[in-house]
């Protein structure tokens, strides 16, 4: 068969006119250096970030150092708010960290096999990822839906009763809060571990297998070390998101779970108008979230494009 590419162009009409005039424009000098141009392109983003992220956070810190609402009149600077956080909100902080930690551990334990199966065995990956967007629509709907499920006489009550499970006893319990938190951040864990696993050549597993390693040995000695960065990044990302948990404890939790920092901030700040204390709680939460993110970025080697 004749290769259409091998056709030499020597048979092209020889009279093709190539003297073609293109209108000349006057030369315009470029008005800025590449670096200057870069700064100009960044200006809108930087302005927004400074105005609505950096300045409010700095202001939050300032307010956290003032008594009650005194910053509005003559600021009385004090560390009382932080003392109060340390004394009366220690258990709230611990509860927040505990819930975030436990739900992230659940994510890791259940998410690792999920990610592995997703990367190695499943061809309908796009479908799975589409379904995984449901939790992303927000913890509110998630907690909401779960509430209906657990409600006495809920729409699925009959189903669970038929299976001999009394789900209603889990309403307003730590279990329900942890479950809904874990489901919300589950996709983040799967995506992080999945990204790490998809960089592990399946041939390495096969090589380990042919060298006589049992499946669990392959996992411990090959897969786990190679996906370590994804595990850390995923865990910290879930942990960071869950530190700010709000809707799940409020809708599904007992008063103990409802002591989480975000909820307390809302109560102190927007209900009781104790801005100083709310700001101090906010600063504590921010520092925790920021530390987690910082460590996470170190491990994930540039998640979020960095």
């Amino acid at each position, binding site marked *: 068969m004749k*290769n*259409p*590419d*091998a*056709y*030499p*162009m*020597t*048979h*092209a*009409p*020889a009279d*093709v*006119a*190539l*003297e*073609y*005039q*293109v*209108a000349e*424009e006057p*030369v315009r*000098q*470029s008005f800025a250096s590449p670096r200057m141009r870069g700064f100009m392109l960044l200006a809108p983003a930087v302005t927004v970030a400074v105005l609505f992220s950096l300045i409010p956070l700095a202001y939050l810190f300032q307010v956290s150092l003032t008594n009650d609402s005194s910053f509005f009149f003559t600021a009385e600077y004090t560390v009382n708010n932080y003392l109060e956080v340390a004394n009366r909100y220690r258990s709230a902080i611990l509860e927040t960290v505990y819930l975030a930690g436990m739900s992230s551990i659940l994510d890791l334990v259940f998410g690792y096999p999920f990610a592995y199966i997703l990367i190695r065995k499943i061809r309908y990956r796009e479908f799975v990822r589409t379904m995984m967007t449901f939790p992303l629509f927000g913890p509110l709907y998630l907690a909401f839906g779960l509430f209906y499920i657990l409600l006495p006489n809920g729409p699925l009550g009959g189903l669970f009763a038929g299976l001999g499970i009394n789900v209603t006893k889990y309403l307003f319990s730590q279990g329900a809060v942890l479950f809904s938190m874990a489901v919300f951040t589950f996709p983040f864990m799967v995506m992080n571990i999945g990204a790490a696993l998809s960089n592990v050549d399946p041939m390495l597993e096969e090589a380990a297998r042919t060298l006589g390693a049992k499946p669990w040995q392959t996992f411990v000695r090959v897969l786990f070390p190679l996906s370590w960065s994804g595990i850390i990044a995923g865990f910290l990302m879930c942990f960071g998101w869950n530190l700010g948990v709000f809707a799940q404890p409020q809708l599904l939790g007992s008063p103990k779970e409802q002591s989480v920092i975000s909820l307390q901030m809302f109560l102190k700040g927007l209900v009781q108008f104790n801005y100083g204390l709310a700001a101090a709680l906010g600063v504590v939460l921010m520092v925790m979230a920021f530390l987690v993110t910082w460590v996470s970025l170190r491990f994930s080697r540039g998640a979020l494009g960095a």
Partner: protein
Amino acid sequence: MTRVQLLDVSKRFGQTLAVDHVNADIADGEFVTLLGPSGCGKTTTLRMVAGLIDPTAGQIQFDGQAVNAVPSHRRNIGLAFQSHALFPHLSVARNIAFGLEVKRTPKVDVQRRVAEMLDMVELSEYGARMPAQLSGGQQQRVALARMLATDPRVLLFDEPLSALDRNLRDSLKYSILDLQRRTKKTAIYVTHDQSEAFAISDRIFVMNDGRIEQSGTQLDIYLRPRTEFVANFVGDNNAIAGEVTALVPGAPGEPSLVDVRAGRMRLRGLNPGNLRVGDKVLAFVRPENIDVLMESRESDEPNLIRGRIAQIVFEGPTVRVIVETDGVAIRATAGGLGRLTLLDQERRDVLLRLQEVTVVRDESAAAA
């Protein structure tokens, strides 16, 4: 139409000097190839001519006018990329029209020009297709049509065939040459493939380490390499280290020669012009320029060397003979029917007749 000159052009990236004081004068309508290994600065040189990067020092001139300050889009050049670089979201016709459209050429003229160009590369039927629907060779032809559509002053080629398979490369390189000949445009072609360079160039610039090692015709480069690098990079070569024993003036109209002693061997080769008696040198002789003579005698004649066949390899059209002489292994290739008589001659003493020997200064010995 356009003469291209590079005057002392250098480019520094951080600590590395990618292009080191390059001078070149490319005549109007000439087809010049920059040949060299990867990282030798040939692509950087081309991109400076294209205006995609600025030289650190030196001047680039088109027709005697400095173009350093002229941005790429105002230089009116055509550049062919390693991969075709067709815009994937535009049809073939829109790709070809692009250069004219951005210059606000009237629609009628654009359409006429696109039709001409499609006709020229014999893809008239393909105007409405998307680039992804074409084969590799067709894509590269569209790329050529696109670069010619704006009637550029200079054609620049950055290894345009390296992504294609071998058969396609062979036919397309002649297509490129043909287009250049018909349009009579100045062309600069970058490649690491010497067969490509030899096939299409008027003149070859061999580059290494940011410098032009040698420029000249194919014959100059192949038969009269002036540096060790050129001798080694272009074609296969035997290198024999020795010392100049005498300068031999050439007959009138002939180049001058030098005598070289390398152990027991006596060689006579072309003098590059800068050698003195006592200089450490390398003598180069190509395997195909060595005759293997089935004789065994002592010889005082230069370039006639006694040795013993160490290995014979049948390579089909040629036979490769490796001869040991004075501790040095010399490769010779024999062609023609005579090659078959060599096949059973391992361990036999023979005489080698060396022809077209060239001599260059041994830089490593000089440095030591």
